[in-house]
């Protein structure tokens, strides 16, 4: 088994104007999907990220500087994520294709990223 991260991309604030019932229905679709994936032992985690409240930390003259990130002005934002378990890339893709995030809006898309097992390097780093 390998782990994959699904980064849920979207247009900022596309869900801002939705009526409350519609929003709850959408939430329910994500939740039911996550629950059934969890029941199959295929879900390792996932959260919704807040729309806004983004802070960027960059290095300026050797020091970390924090600034407010643009959110509403961006073309594309990450609205949330799932971490899934899959036996290979093909299974990870099948799971991602089934994720309600892509069905909910034509502007939504998913970036699938294999998670790198760092066990070996961590052990090496810890030993060194």
């Amino acid at each position: 088994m390998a782990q994959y991260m699904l980064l849920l991309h979207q247009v900022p604030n596309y869900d801002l104007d939705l009526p409350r019932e519609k929003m709850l229905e959408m939430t329910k679709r994500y939740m039911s999907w996550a629950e059934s994936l969890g029941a199959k032992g295929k879900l390792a985690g996932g959260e919704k990220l807040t729309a806004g409240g983004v802070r960027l930390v960059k290095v300026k003259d050797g020091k970390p500087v924090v600034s407010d990130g643009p959110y509403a002005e961006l073309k594309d934002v990450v609205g949330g994520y799932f971490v899934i378990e899959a036996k290979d890339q093909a299974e990870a893709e099948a799971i991602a294709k089934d994720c309600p995030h892509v069905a909910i809006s034509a502007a939504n898309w998913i970036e699938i990223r294999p998670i790198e097992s760092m066990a070996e390097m961590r052990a090496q780093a810890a030993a060194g």
Partner: protein
Amino acid sequence: MAQYMLLLHQLPATNAQLPPDTMTDVVRRYYEWAEAMRQKGKLVGGEKLAAGRVRHIRMRDGKPLSSDGPYAEAKDVVGGYFVIEAKDDAEADAIARDCPHLWNATNWVELRPIDLMTAAEAPRAKAVG
């Protein structure tokens, strides 16, 4: 306590150019920071994402389609993430500023509050169904 996600942005070639010894040293800095955070009860999770093998899924004509995502050609990539616990935005900022990902001037951290709405809405979402 609130949870925050740190998305670790970087140039695609950042780690590919490093000599193995430097790479081990960099990994050690992330590892030691994560261990210290874990011991303080501030770390929920975190992983390194592979360089490459990126796939994109989008709807085309009502069907989900997968395609190769760019990695080496991308201007900016997410190389990994941490999920942390902090009592407020100020503490989250301080933790992010201390993150070893900022070891190089082109790396940067996107700090995102995690929306606990999902958990709060759960009973109501079920009731709606």
